[in-house]
């Protein structure tokens, strides 16, 4: 049972637990530091926290089960860039072979104790088989010629923000790249193919708008109960796949299909939640009213959920990793760029504010 919520913020990692009057902050770690992502590993109870120190680079910390002390471990490190190699991104800018953000952190398969995956900016995927003590770059994806088509979306440089380890086979992974589409391997990373066919964006020439390599999926999730089904909150809207993420179809939501986060129900692939904003150039809630949208029918219809959420002059943006769902599908949590945080105990029908004074929230995860 997931009894904790890990909240990664611009100024520290906050752990929430259930108190007499609802969820409350219990402990704070790394106060003052930019914690960009946390991970709880249910296989062994370990917690991980990624920090962007700015001046001092990207660091990763680990805390063993039931321990209080965090220990710094290795951070994904790029190999030495071969001398004379010309390596440009889709903008034509030189790619810096250095970890600039840990943007995705996931566990391997249930029986792969100690295996972790990390997605980074500028686009490298890393694997550890020793609980983060060491990491190695998945060179096949890094050296794939199409990687040079990737470009920054929102950020200056491309990055992997979503990693879906297939529950049917841990050697099958799909990763989503902003901007670079969706990449699939079925042999633990030996070979990769582009898997964003059917996604598109609205502006620009058709050849570019429909190019899989140009797509900007903001967040991708895989249905645990029906793993052939996927949801993506994309820069240009919502997409879903029912064929193992081989092809995608657009889904229209009201009042808007723009947003960053998406979560899917653990037992129902047709139920998913989103937090809409107006549009890419207006990243604020529609009408200053913060809502969550939920579909229960695979995207045919959406319901706006707003009970307990601010409906006047609310300009909260929920980042892609800052909307979370627990393993029952009943509890949701979300945190905003303005430091507000809410929890729902009834699938989003009603929300309670947990805090209005947190630092800007990067990521939220439920934990055992």
């Amino acid at each position, binding site marked *: 049972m997931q009894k904790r919520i890990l909240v990664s913020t611009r100024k520290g990692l906050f752990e929430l637990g259930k108190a007499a009057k609802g969820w409350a902050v219990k402990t704070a770690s790394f106060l003052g530091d930019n914690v960009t992502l946390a991970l709880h590993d249910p296989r062994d109870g370990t917690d991980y926290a990624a920090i962007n*120190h*700015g*001046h*001092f*680079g990207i*660091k990763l910390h680990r805390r063993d089960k039931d321990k209080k002390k965090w220990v*710094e471990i290795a*951070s994904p*490190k*790029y*190999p*030495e*860039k071969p001398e004379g190699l010309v390596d440009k991104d889709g903008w034509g800018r030189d790619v*810096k*072979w*250095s*970890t600039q953000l840990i943007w995705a952190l996931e566990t391997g398969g249930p029986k792969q104790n100690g295996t972790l995956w990390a997605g980074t900016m500028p686009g490298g995927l890393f694997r550890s088989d020793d609980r983060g003590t060491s990491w190695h770059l998945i060179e096949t994806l890094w050296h794939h010629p199409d990687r040079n088509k990737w470009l920054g979306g929102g950020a200056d440089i491309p990055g992997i923000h979503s990693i879906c380890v297939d529950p049917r086979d841990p050697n099958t992974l799909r990763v989503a790249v902003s901007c670079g589409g969706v990449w699939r391997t079925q042999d633990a990373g030996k070979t990769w193919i582009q898997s964003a066919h059917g996604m598109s964006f609205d502006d620009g020439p058709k050849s570019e708008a429909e190019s899989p390599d140009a797509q900007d999926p903001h967040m991708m999730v895989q249905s645990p109960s029906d793993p052939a089904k996927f949801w993506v909150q994309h820069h240009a809207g919502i997409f879903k796949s029912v064929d193992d993420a081989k092809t995608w179809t657009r889904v229209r939501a009201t009042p808007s299909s723009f947003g960053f986060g998406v979560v899917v129900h653990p037992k129902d692939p047709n139920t998913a939640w989103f937090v809409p904003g107006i549009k890419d150039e207006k990243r604020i809630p529609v009408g200053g009213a913060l809502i969550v949208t939920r579909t229960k029918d695979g995207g045919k219809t959406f319901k706006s959920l707003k009970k307990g959420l601010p409906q006047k002059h609310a300009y909260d943006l929920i980042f892609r990793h800052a909307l979370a769902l627990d393993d029952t599908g009943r509890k949701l949590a979300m945190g905003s760029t303005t430091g507000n945080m809410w929890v729902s105990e009834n699938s989003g029908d009603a929300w309670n504010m947990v805090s209005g004074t947190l630092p800007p929230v990067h990521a939220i995860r439920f934990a055992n």
Partner: protein
Amino acid sequence: MAKVHFTSNLRRHVDCPSVEVVASHVHQALEQAFAKNQRLRTYVLDDQGHLRKHMRILVDGVAVKDLEHFNDAVQPTSELWVMQALSGG
């Protein structure tokens, strides 16, 4: 002997008291400092071994110019400071 100093901000994250070194170039001074604590290297240099974007190294008050190979000269009495940029609000 030359001496290498680190800021309190950096010392908050990694144990790096000032250290005396025998060095004629900055790269030698850095290697001797890193030998005391290998984690320190990753806080000062990036994955390619270059000085991190917002870091500076001063030798007797003058900023090091060779940010990839650190071939700037060091005197036996030099004072080196490894500093982060004073930025942000």
